[in-house]
């Protein structure tokens, strides 16, 4: 392998390359199966599934953002749902302004909920959101600035570990309480919904949904490459050393808080992008997204997949969310038991997540193979068994 080339960070990441290939494949295949294959065919993918998969891809991007700070820098943020929701609200505000005079009250300037609350003019912080480019800038800037301010205060005063987790949770809790207020001007309890179109394309049309899905897939791939690039760089190695021994890193001469701040802001922006892609696909954003339990759920996606690997987060997010869709539909009573059980089991028995289990199992198999090659005649009886097992797993 060309370890010295400029692209070594990507080429050495075998599992990552596989993951990217899979994501690329479903990003390309699903739209074809949805649009080009006739609706009665066995291979047709219903539009409902496209949106659902698109949602999973957004969650995967969010999980990636959390893994970047938790897996590589040891910052367990219990408030990442807040950055996701803020990105979502920025997108939602753009979509609200796009409704124009097609709302229930037909007011060309004010969204329905403001008319309902008897507001006379648009609050200043809603200005500019009719412009798509400005809204997209806000998707990055609002979570980014919040993360910058919060991180700057926190990391500078060396709040770490559990304390950090608890105050990030307090942050998202405070934001949730604030967004539930009607006079905040973000739709209060109901949030923002009833979206009509995005950039002139009808949000309810199949083509638009597929396009959003493809965008989510592309965003996930770019996000993955970005995160992989960061963690493979020299900066990434400093991050890992902060995770493993913060004081030592500081004594060696690195400005620990700067590194942490950089990666925290980057992660918040990724979460914001995920939120912005999520909102048009589900058609609503409300303060419930800020609730502390949502943020903790993200952590469990990463923990189940395996943290500190990046692709583990993606796998975990998709696995857990598929499980959630299935169980909340089939056995709604059981889902919370399942989720709770997942927390306990994954922390007790799967410290490296699903990916870790697979890796361990592979390693054991390789060791056994190596052992057998050294002593080929050690156990002649066992040989047929293990070879068939190997064939089965290979296929």
């Amino acid at each position, binding site marked *: 392998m060309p370890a010295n080339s400029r692209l070594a960070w990507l080429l050495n990441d075998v599992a990552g390359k596989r993951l990217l290939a899979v994501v690329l494949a479903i990003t390309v295949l699903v739209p074809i199966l949805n649009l080009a294959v006739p609706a009665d065919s066995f291979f047709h993918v219903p539009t409902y599934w496209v949106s659902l998969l698109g949602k999973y891809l957004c969650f995967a991007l969010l999980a990636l953002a959390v893994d970047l700070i938790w897996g590589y820098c040891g910052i367990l943020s219990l408030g990442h749902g807040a950055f996701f929701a803020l990105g979502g609200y920025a997108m939602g505000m753009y979509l609200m302004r796009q409704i124009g005079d097609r709302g229930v009250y037909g007011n060309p300037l004010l969204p329905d909920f403001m008319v309902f609350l008897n507001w006379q003019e648009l609050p200043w912080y809603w200005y500019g959101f009719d412009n798509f480019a400005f809204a997209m800038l806000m998707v990055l800037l609002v979570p980014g600035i919040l993360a910058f301010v919060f991180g700057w205060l926190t990391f500078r005063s060396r709040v770490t570990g559990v*304390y950090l987790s608890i105050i990030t*949770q307090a942050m998202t809790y*405070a934001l949730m309480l604030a967004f539930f207020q009607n006079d905040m001007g973000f739709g209060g309890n109901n949030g923002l919904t009833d979206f009509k179109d995005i950039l002139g394309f009808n949000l309810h049309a199949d083509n638009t949904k597929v396009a959003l899905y493809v965008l989510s897939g592309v965003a996930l791939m770019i996000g993955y490459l970005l995160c992989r690039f960061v963690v493979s760089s020299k900066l990434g190695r400093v991050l890992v050393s902060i995770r493993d021994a913060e004081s030592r890193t500081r004594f060696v001469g690195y400005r620990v808080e700067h590194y942490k701040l950089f990666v925290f802001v980057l992660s918040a922006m990724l979460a914001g992008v995920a939120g912005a892609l999520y909102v048009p696909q589900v058609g609503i954003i409300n303060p419930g997204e800020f609730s502390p*339990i949502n943020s903790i759920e993200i952590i469990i996606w990463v923990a189940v997949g395996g943290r500190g690997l990046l692709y583990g987060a993606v796998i975990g997010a998709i696995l857990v969310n598929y499980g959630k869709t299935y169980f909340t539909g089939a056995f709604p009573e059981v889902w*919370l*038991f399942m989720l*709770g059980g997942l*927390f*306990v089991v994954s922390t007790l028995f799967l410290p490296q997540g699903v990916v870790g289990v697979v890796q361990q199992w592979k390693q054991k198999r390789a060791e056994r193979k190596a052992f057998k090659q050294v002593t080929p005649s050690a156990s002649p009886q066992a040989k047929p068994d293990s070879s068939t097992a190997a064939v089965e797993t290979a296929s």
Partner: protein
Amino acid sequence: MIRYFLNIVFMLAFALSGVQFAQADDDAFGQLVEQLGGSNLRNKVQVIEQIAALEDERALPVLEALMNNALYQRKSDNQFVFAADEDKQLRLTSVVSGEDLGLASSRDVRKVITNNSLRSQTRTLVAVTRLHSKKNEVKLAAVSELLKSPDASFLAPLDAAIAEEKNPSVLKALQVARGAILLGNESEVERLKAVKAMDGYNSKQVLTLLQAQLDVESSELVRKEINDVLGGLKRAETGYKFVEDLFFGLSLGSVLLLAAVGLAITFGVMGVINMAHGEMIMLGAYTTYVVQLLMPNHIEASLIVAVPAAFLVAGLMGVIIERGVIRFLYGRPLETLLATFGISLILQQLVRSVFSPLNRSVITPQWMSGSWEINGFLSLTYNRMYIVLFALAVLFGLMLLLKKSYFGLQMRAVTQNRAMASSMGIRTGWVDAMTFGLGSGIAGIAGVALSQLTNVGPNLGQSYIIDSFMVVVFGGVGNLWGTFVAAMGLGVANKFIEPLSGAVLAKILILVFIIMFIQRRPRGLFALKGRFVEG
């Protein structure tokens, strides 16, 4: 139960006080009541006046019932009855004999006909009758009614009542009521006297009365006097408002203290992040509910039984969690956080499956309801007073346990140096389990207290967990005094910010304050002194 008992006592008393005399009296009262039927309203006015003049103990209830449209006649025998709603039916009580006549449908009774003028006549008579009552509370209630609508027709009975009143505080109240009536008098001197009589009587009604009079008052002299009196009253009101806010703040702080003090043990002493702590509170609250289900006839005593029961249930659950999950995760705080969060989800769903997702109602015993009316500006509810006392008792008991008992000694030893404690022969694993059980059990006790203040539902715990962590972190980990000061401080601060900004914004401000505070002092208000190395 109690009502039957009272009835028997009542009858016995009657029997002893001379049957014949009672009988004659009874007849007069009974005959007058009989005349309340029918539709001749003019006659009824005379009848109620005669009833009021009887000076019979039973007169007031009849008049009050007539005033509130709660006087009925039973269709079957035309007997006059009081009716009170009970389980969608009416519980009937005989007017004359006070006898319980059992439940009846609303179709079995006929309402005694009244009209507006009769009702207002009745209101006057009720007020007058109350003024002549032997009980001070009844008299004060009558004064409060009078202050709502002062009317010159009450002047004569008031004067009569003032003449024979001996209790100074009741006398003052009666004079204030008299003043309220005379405020509308034409004579300037009378008005001046009236205002002077009201000086220093702490009541919101007096405040509004004087305020209204100020708008219409023509005499400069009286205006000045009113302003003086109003100024004094307003100062008193501000003072008492402050006391009330302080009390509310302290009671909120006590709730926070109860919720957080268990966490201060598990998080502060053991360093375990127990996200299922809120669910331990919830278990305690549900234990109260179950205890009340098991002893429906002894609701008054149910809370006293529920406290140890909740301690055992939650404590046992805590020990199970510690032995089953947490002991494998010591030294990995973030993993503990996740695992216990999972446990909290499981417990919530468990409660939802067993008890239904709806809120359950826990009955408040008689001795905890009601309030202590200190004056017109200040009244403190009993349940909040008990919560404050209870929280302090729990904190004190816990400190005693930690400082004075052998178990507390072992616990502190394990906290300070696990390896050394172990080699001195302390079973550290057992101490861990017991400590965790203690923290959880105290959360269960908090649940009993909270069941008296909020709804008991599966989400009860979730709403307290973040607050509890804030209190513990703010107060400084591993320090019960810190927890106490933090809880009370946050509670009082919350109550004082609330009127300025609204309840939700107050909460947000407090959260932001704590976030900023932790930046300044990452180890809380009362940090343990010494050097710390990251673990």
